[in-house]
């Protein structure tokens, strides 16, 4: 376990949930780089994790992390068993809880925090979760709208949701000048609390949209009993609330509260913004600050021979979500028109050996085993000079940096219309005048469209080069890491001194 206790008032308190520094990944790396890029500021890490989490550090914390605090979700202090006016307290809490689990927002959270702070130290696991009063509260809440549902599921959901919420609302709150959360959800809940209790500025940067991701997980949760099988998942016409609704609506309430509390609501690309708006984010507070790449590093890899090698590459792991099979099928179609085509898959194939096998078999079956090559994990800087077109056939993406890296080297991209891909390839509404397309956006799971796009670019070297240049310029102007880090610097500057 790694906790750095401190009394220093940090400039920025970064709130992370289930990622940095114990989980390696895109968001974690982003947090790590953000802290490193602001060496003049002192950071405090507020880490939210599960009781059973692995506590191995996956990153060496930068020097300017002056303190860390861990909050284990659903872990509450015991608190007192009996309280003098327990019925009244339960009543006050119940009203707020009902809202928060349905259509709640900032005001409800504020009310809840008021009650909790009035009885500071006394309200813990014993009273809030295990007491007879809590039990009666649970029964009343169950009977109001969920009396047709599995009581067992409701019981655990109630405990899980409230335990998580209480642990966030009652955990330690380190002093800082600015609070910055990296997601809504529980981290967002904590951010809201920090805003309410300290009044200091609150910033939110959303990578993926928390409620969307939970939506998928909840819809797929097979341990949640479905009492009416016609109401699978989140059927729009289900008139009665069920437990999946309860989960989703609770998380939506947290998001709503968080957006209301924030001074700035940032996300990586425009596609996310419609979800933020739907959950109550105020447009005037919203901003797009994408992830960037080291432009100079990739720019040197540009090549005048671009378009003359007939080389396409899919840079990514060989896993189903990247939909390598559509790529393979597309290549077999391209081969008919451009027999010189050389296609590569540049990424590790050991994560899902079964899928890799299927891909190989497909390649054999379609007769492209000579044209298609799985090169495994490679050093991209060595390959970038040779690649003419970057292809992404993923079913789901956030903001794939590979498009920007290849773009900086002048390589155009053909990608599916997911995540930030369209914005990166075609530019978004901020671009005025538009820089032009940096490639072609194709529909999901469409080998024909993908193949046609490849053929279109490959048979027209001028078009290919121009697309590459467009994308390169776009990366230089809007996706240069240094510029984006500078944006955060001035953002922090603005709010720290407030």
């Amino acid at each position, binding site marked *: 376990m790694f906790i750095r206790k401190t009394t220093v008032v940090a400039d920025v308190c970064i709130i992370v949930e289930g990622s940095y520094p114990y989980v390696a990944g895109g968001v974690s790396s982003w947090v790590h780089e953000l802290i490193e890029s602001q060496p003049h500021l002192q950071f405090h890490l507020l880490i939210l994790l599960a009781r059973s989490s692995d506590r191995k550090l996956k990153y060496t914390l930068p020097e300017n992390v002056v303190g860390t605090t861990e909050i284990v979700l659903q872990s509450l202090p015991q608190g007192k068993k009996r309280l003098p006016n327990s019925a009244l307290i339960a009543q006050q809490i119940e009203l707020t809880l009902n809202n928060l689990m349905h259509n709640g927002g900032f005001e409800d959270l504020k009310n809840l925090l008021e009650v909790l702070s009035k009885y500071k130290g006394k309200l813990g696991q014993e009273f809030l979760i295990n007491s007879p009063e809590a039990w009666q509260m649970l029964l009343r809440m169950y009977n109001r709208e969920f009396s047709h549902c599995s009581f*067992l599921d409701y019981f655990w959901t109630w405990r899980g949701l409230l335990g998580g919420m209480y642990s966030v609302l009652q955990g330690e709150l380190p002093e800082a000048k600015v609070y910055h959360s990296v997601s809504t959800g529980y981290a967002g809940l904590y951010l809201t609390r920090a805003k309410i209790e300290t009044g200091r500025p609150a910033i939110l940067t959303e990578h993926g949209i928390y409620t969307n991701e939970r939506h998928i997980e909840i819809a797929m949760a097979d341990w949640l009993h479905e009492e009416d099988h016609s109401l699978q998942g989140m059927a729009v016409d289900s008139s009665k609330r069920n437990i999946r609704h309860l989960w989703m609506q609770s998380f939506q309430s947290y998001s709503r509260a968080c957006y209301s509390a924030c001074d700035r609501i940032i996300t990586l690309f425009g596609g996310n913004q419609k979800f933020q708006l739907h959950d109550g984010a105020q447009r005037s507070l919203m901003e797009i600050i994408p992830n960037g790449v080291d432009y100079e590093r990739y720019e040197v890899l540009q090549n005048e021979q671009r378009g003359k090698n007939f080389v396409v590459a899919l840079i990514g792991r060989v896993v189903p979500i990247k939909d390598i099979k559509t790529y393979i099928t597309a290549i077999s179609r391209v081969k008919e028109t451009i027999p010189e085509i050389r296609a590569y898959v540049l990424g590790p194939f050991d994560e899902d050996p079964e899928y890799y096998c299927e891909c190989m078999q497909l390649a054999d079956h379609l007769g492209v085993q000579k044209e298609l090559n799985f090169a495994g994990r490679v050093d991209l800087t060595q390959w970038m000079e040779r690649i003419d077109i970057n292809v992404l056939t993923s079913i789901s993406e956030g903001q794939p940096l590979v498009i920007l890296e290849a773009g900086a080297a002048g390589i155009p991209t053909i990608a599916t219309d997911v995540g930030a891909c369209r914005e990166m390839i075609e530019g978004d509404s901020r671009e005025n005048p538009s820089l032009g397309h940096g490639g072609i956006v194709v529909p999901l799971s469409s080998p024909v469209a993908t193949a046609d796009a490849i053929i279109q670019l490959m048979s027209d070297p001028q078009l290919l080069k121009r697309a590459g240049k467009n994308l390169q310029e776009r990366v230089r102007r809007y996706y240069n890491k240094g510029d984006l880090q500078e944006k955060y610097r001035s953002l922090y500057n603005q709010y720290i001194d407030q």
Partner: protein
Amino acid sequence: MAGIGFVLRKLSQRDDFTRSLMAYFYSAIISSGPWLFTVLSLGVLVLITNQFLDAHDIAEFRIIIIYNFSFSLVLSAPVFMVATRCLADMIHSHDVSGAPGLLLGMFILVYGLALPISVAFYFFYAKLEFWIQVAAVLNYLLISGIWVTAVFISALKEFAAISRSFGIGMMVSLLASVLLSMEFGTIGLLVGFNLGLCFILFDLIARILSEYPGTPRKLFVFLRYFYTHWELAFFGLFYNLAVWVDKWIMWSDAGRTTQSNGLVSFPIYDGAMFLAYLSLVPAIALFTLNVETKFYEQYLRFFQDIQHHATYDRIKHNARLLSQAILGGAQKILILQLTIAISLIVLAPFLLDFLGSSPLQLGIFRYGVLGGIFHVFTMFLITALSYFDVRKKVLLIAVTFFLTNGFFTAVSLQMGMQWYGWGYTIASIISFSMAYILVARHVDELPYETFVVRNASV
């Protein structure tokens, strides 16, 4: 982003009540089984020997048997209560490879204690002939061995066959001891009795080893349960102490009988009490049968419906049915027991006269019969609570019974001969009242108790 999908994942891994369900294993069999065997053995013993107590051999034999039953039960109870839980857990996790080891480990522990204690007592304290001492120690070890093997009876489930072998064993004891006594006196009685016990013990061991074959491994894994389930160990201790403490207190009184061999007893009291306990046998048998059917059905349904995603309405309904099953079952037994008790109390003078008992035993016998009703119901309520795995409440009842029985028996000694036995009656009534209140409260709040208070995964 890893997100907090873990919260959802953790919920899908929770263990709903399957541990609670296993509580039924240390059920009627283990709480009333040993008591039943004791009552039958000693009751019949007393019945037969009451008229022959002037015969030194018989008096000596009887007192040794009573001592051995009482002390062996009190000393082995903590061990077998804890071992029953250990075995239940093994069965629950579908890994019974440790069962032979458990049996062997228990024997080693129990005999490790029993041997020095019995040897010290019979060889150094009691003034007995050598072979009597040997037979007495052997008798103690055999009885302790039966308590050890009793742990597995629930799991074996061959109740009919096992009852038969107990029956046969006791027949053998009876016949052999009567036959041998003619030639060999006390030794003959002891050896004859031991023969019957051997039959029962070896029959049980054979059944256990055939059901759980394999080499004994991890002999002392069950010792951990003394720490995690200390309430069970103490319950075993205090419950059996409670049942014997009144007799021990009588034995310490000046009015006791001391035999030439130095062993003390209070034959009037002991005899009357064990005769009274015999009246409980039908109730215990009925309870055991009933429990394995109606109550258990309802109990199982309560937990299974929860696991099968019942609504709260249904859960509450099942709790009500369960409470009715407890009360309904109790009612039938109560009617039976009251009938028996009233008849016995009324007919006591004739009965005791017929049995050749002293008229002094009349009062004690009546108090015993009356107290017995409440005692037997306390036992049932304890069993019901054990089903719900409320170990502390059960321990509380046992401690109360022990303290009240001891205290009021001591008081009755002060109050005079016509009050002898009254202590047991009062103690039984008090313990029953406490048990009733605890059970009623628990069943009333059954959903809360089940979901929040008792749930191990919480």
